[in-house]
């Protein structure tokens, strides 16, 4: 048992590090990182960086070389991720396209479409979004209502999507629709990709509890999509969706925000009732709990990496990451604000202010516990797919979709 690389892994790590060192600044501390002045600036910087990655062969590493990838092994991707995390490099914007749209295009698009759409995803020239959730279909995502009607070889789309990250700056989107409302829920769906500049698409930002707007509502009014942009057979949209949902669950990692280290360092410097907070036994117990959770996740990840390093499929232990880290973040953030006593309530956006980090965590955690699969859905997945327990009894099984009650009544 050790934490060492194999000789091949060490060689790859060195190559990755040296390229990064020649092309990006090292982080000055664990919490140092790239930050853009605005969303627009960020997008520009990400595109420049992605182009550089692509030219040097570090883009979409597991993709076929023909589409701009590197045909890397899973362990090489992990090592690259570890090395990248040491540098201040632009990130975000591209994950949905490269992580979810790319794989689904690779599986279902024509050769011609793959040649047209995959390379610009790898170079970062084109941005994609995912149009799945709807106001009445969140956890029950197969319950979507956005209508698709075929006339000749053109589909007409009407309806509304929600929680679409990056819809306002995306070039294309992957879209799941209901093509047959008289079929049972999972049967009547059809999957497309769509040009986000198509007439009839309207994008409206959603104001979140934090005041920010990372997501959108996307309205479709008589939007035309050629049948050639259908992915998978008519009525097979659920099967196609699962490809991307599996990829989404793999992509969702640790909740970012204040963690044990921040809470520990806060407690060591902060007065609480006349002595340092770290000397308070209740504080120590909480810190110990968070340390154990953080450490458990860290070493679960190491177990995964070890499996990858041996060329094996990792065990299901990573399915716990988001539940544990999301809940931990919520507790740590609440602790941080509580320890600051009444001052914790005073809103500040000042970078580096102690409150600011915990206040972002306070808001962010509430969203993380929902995004990409709620705690409850993830527990269903663990119990069904990991432990092999039966699915819930469904009240909507076998019933035509248009007879199923849904949404808020």
């Amino acid at each position, binding site marked *: 048992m050790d934490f060492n690389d194999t000789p091949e892994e060490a060689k790859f790590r060195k190559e990755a590090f040296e390229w990064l060192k020649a092309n990006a600044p090292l982080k000055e501390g664990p919490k140092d990182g790239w930050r853009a002045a605005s969303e627009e600036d960020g997008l520009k910087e990400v595109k420049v960086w992605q182009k550089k990655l692509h030219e040097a062969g570090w883009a979409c590493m597991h993709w076929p070389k023909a589409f701009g990838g590197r045909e890397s092994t899973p362990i090489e991707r992990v090592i690259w991720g570890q090395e990248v995390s040491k540098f201040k490099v632009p990130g975000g914007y591209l994950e949905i396209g490269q992580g979810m749209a790319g794989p689904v295009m690779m599986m279902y698009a024509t050769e011609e479409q793959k040649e047209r759409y995959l390379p610009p995803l790898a170079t970062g020239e084109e941005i994609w979004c995912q149009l799945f959730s709807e106001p009445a279909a969140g956890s029950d995502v197969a319950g979507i209502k956005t209508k698709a009607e075929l006339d000749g070889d053109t589909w007409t789309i009407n309806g509304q999507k929600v929680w679409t990250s990056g819809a306002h700056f995306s070039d294309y989107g992957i879209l799941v629709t209901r093509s047959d409302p008289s079929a049972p829920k999972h049967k009547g769906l059809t999957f497309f990709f769509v040009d986000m500049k198509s007439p009839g698409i309207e994008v409206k930002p959603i104001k979140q509890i934090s005041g920010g707007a990372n997501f959108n509502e996307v309205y479709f009014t008589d939007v035309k999509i050629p049948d050639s942009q259908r992915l998978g057979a008519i009525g097979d949209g659920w099967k196609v969706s699962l490809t991307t949902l599996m990829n989404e669950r793999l992509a969702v990692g640790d909740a970012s925000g204040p963690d044990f280290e921040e809470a520990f360092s806060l407690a060591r410097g902060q007065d609480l009732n006349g002595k340092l907070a770290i000397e308070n036994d209740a504080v120590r*117990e909480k810190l110990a709990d968070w340390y154990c959770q953080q450490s458990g996740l860290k070493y679960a990840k190491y177990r995964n990496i070890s499996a990858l390093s041996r060329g094996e499929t990792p065990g299901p232990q990573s399915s716990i990451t988001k539940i544990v880290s999301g809940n931990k973040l919520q507790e740590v953030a609440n602790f941080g604000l509580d320890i600051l006593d009444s001052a914790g309530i005073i809103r500040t956006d000042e970078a580096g202010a102690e409150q600011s980090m915990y206040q972002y965590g306070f808001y962010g955690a509430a969203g993380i516990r929902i995004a990409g699969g709620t705690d409850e859905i993830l527990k269903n997945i663990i119990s069904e797919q990991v432990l092999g327990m039966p699915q819930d009894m469904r009240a909507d099984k076998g019933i035509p979709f248009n007879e199923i009650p849904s949404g808020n009544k």
Partner: protein
Amino acid sequence: MNFEFSADQMQLKDIARKFLEKEESVKRARTVLEGEESFDKDLWSQVTEMGFTATAIPEEYGGLGLGYLELCVIAEELGRSLAPTPFSSSVYLATEAILQGNDDSVKEAFLPGLASGDKIGAFAHSESNTSPTETNISCSYKDGNLSGTKIAVVDGDIADFYVVSAKNGSSVGLYLVEGSSSGIEVNQQPTLDPSRSHASVSFDNTPCSELKSDWSDVLNLLDRAAVLFAFEQLGGAEACMDMAKEYAMGRYAFGRSIASFQAIKHKLADMYIAVELARSNCYYGAWALSTDAPELPTAAATCRVSASQAYHECSKENIQTHGGMGFTWEFDCHLYYRRCRQLAANIGSQSIWKDKLISSLERANQI
């Protein structure tokens, strides 16, 4: 990265598991619980024949000279099967105390017997209803003799010798007492888990020899043992999770398997989360123990806390999943619920280990 047990170690684990299943170790735990015997002598002799007690003892002292990773996988299986033997006292504590000592003649005198299982050792540490500390231990050493009373000494009634924490002037160290020495009084104590015997042991000017002279040696012994105890707790926790799942799958209510209710599924998912966190932390502990890493105090406390939490979660919710049947004497749920408490108490409480964890992080500042 190779943060996994090797194929050989996994095979050893499998052998241990199958052996303990074949020997119906859980059933034997019930027999000890209900009977007069302090432990299962037949199972103990088989465990020793398998060489489990000799695992981490060097070959020069009659051991197998394997490592702590091997001992960890065995511990997990002993925990899973509730093995009613003095393994933890004799191997994780008494053997370790002697191995960590500096006296070769003591090693030569004791280790071969511990390896073969002919000798059983016990660790006598607690004295009252508070955690033993460097300042509150009253058992004392003077001029080669030991005096004082220890309580809740696990396997204290069957031990051939004791490793005892006692003060010598201003310091607290570890002392070795032969069970046959003069001035020892042993009284069995009833406990919440009668499948493991406990006793109070009093010493009155009892001859002894010094193993280690410093409180830090006591803490180091506890850290080393904590990793092995954590593996037992992990095995027990996982057994409870498996039991709860199996029962839920076969139990029908409201016209359906209760395993199809989210209330039960989410309970099981919570158990799985606790077990996976504990397992990953236990691996960290195993790595630190087997490599003598400076992180051992942190790793030991982390896996001890995490595995104690997992066992607590799983053993109580296993009873809950079973409903009324889980509360009966007849079902095995209570055997795990008891053992969970016994292992949690054995080398100090959850609060103490949490405090140790934060203290070790403060010391090392290794964050």
